């Protein structure tokens, strides 16, 4: 199903090493729109990444650092990158080899279009 967010996720999934891109509700962690490769558990990534982003945002505010923009979680077998608006966040699941710098720029640009 195509939505207004399809161009955002499709521009991100084209990057080498990106396995999935999603627009996710920040408060509920539910997928609003996704473009995923087969085998990627979008629901789990959406829920847990939104939760992590909320946590980072609250902690950052409490520490006096202000609003949170880009966030990257690197793990032994992959990465998750996210950036968000007030209500929605973009979540990108990728392999470790992904060019994080390029992805970050694209992600922040795409996130500007989120409500």
């Amino acid at each position, binding site marked *: 199903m195509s939505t207004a967010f399809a161009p955002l996720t499709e521009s991100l999934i084209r990057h080498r090493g990106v396995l999935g891109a999603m627009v996710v509700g920040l408060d509920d962690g539910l997928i609003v729109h996704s473009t995923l490769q087969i085998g990627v558990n979008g629901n789990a990534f959406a829920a847990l990444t939104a939760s992590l982003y909320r946590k*980072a945002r609250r902690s950052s505010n*409490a520490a006096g650092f202000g609003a949170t923009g880009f966030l990257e*979680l690197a793990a032994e077998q992959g990465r998750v990158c996210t950036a968000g608006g007030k209500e929605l966040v973009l979540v990108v699941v990728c392999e470790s080899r992904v060019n994080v710098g390029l992805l970050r720029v694209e992600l922040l640009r795409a996130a500007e279009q989120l409500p």
Partner: protein
Amino acid sequence: MASDDIRALSEELAADPASLAFVPLGEALRRRGDLEVALRVALRGVERHPTRADAHDLLARVAADLGDVERSITEWETVLRLAPGHVGARKGLGFVCFQLGRLEDAAAHLSAALAADPEDGSLSAALQTVQAELAQRGPSPVRATTQVSRHALAEELEAAAAARAALTEQHVRAARPTLGLAAAPGADDDASTLFDDLLEGQRSAAMLLDSDGLVLAGRYVTADGRDLAALIGAQLSGVSDEAGRAMRHLGLGAWTQIVFETEAASVAMAPSREGVMLVAAARPIPLGFVRRVLERALQRASQWLGEGA
């Protein structure tokens, strides 16, 4: 509290945004049921007074009333890090743990609160309620559903808040932290200066935290010379806890690094033995620099911990 009092407190806060009037104002709004307004007041208070336990306590109580259990737990845990003997935070955590069915935790928090305030009869009643639930539960955990004790504890929280509001407030101004190593408290302390030579500048900081978010080494010195390492560490260590929880479900193995950018700083974290290494650099210091410092600080921490073992 009457509307006139709320208006007076609002005017006081408007006239002096650094005023501590936000505590009784937020509490009054919370009691009146204006939770969204109370939340905004509490959030601004925490942002302006991040080292004040009563600011975090207010935010926790408002969050609890809004049903945001996660935030209330985070804030009350922060209160306990800032003020380990804080009875209100113990009561609050007792309440939310009870709500979540974490009866052992609830009993522990309420017991600690009662130990600090043994004259509090309603607190002992709440503890008895939890202990009775524990006894009934038996070997298999059952989620608590009753709301009765919640109200009893909520009344206690309100009473404690009223007592706090009556206390004379100490006016401490704490602006948003601005990184800088101009003044250097504890400069002779090997642990606090462990990472200073890695920072290559005066607008970044590195800290090694234990699993409870307490500072083992490093420091976070603001431009006006205050060391906020304990506060920053306590606030940000929760992010790594959340990452650890997430990794158990994502099938990506253990987390190796978290990087995030905020309005004021770029932050990078990585696991280090049983704790976390944290590096923060004021914007617009590039993210790549922060990551490099993190890697070098991790090596330094590993050596230091090895020497200490």
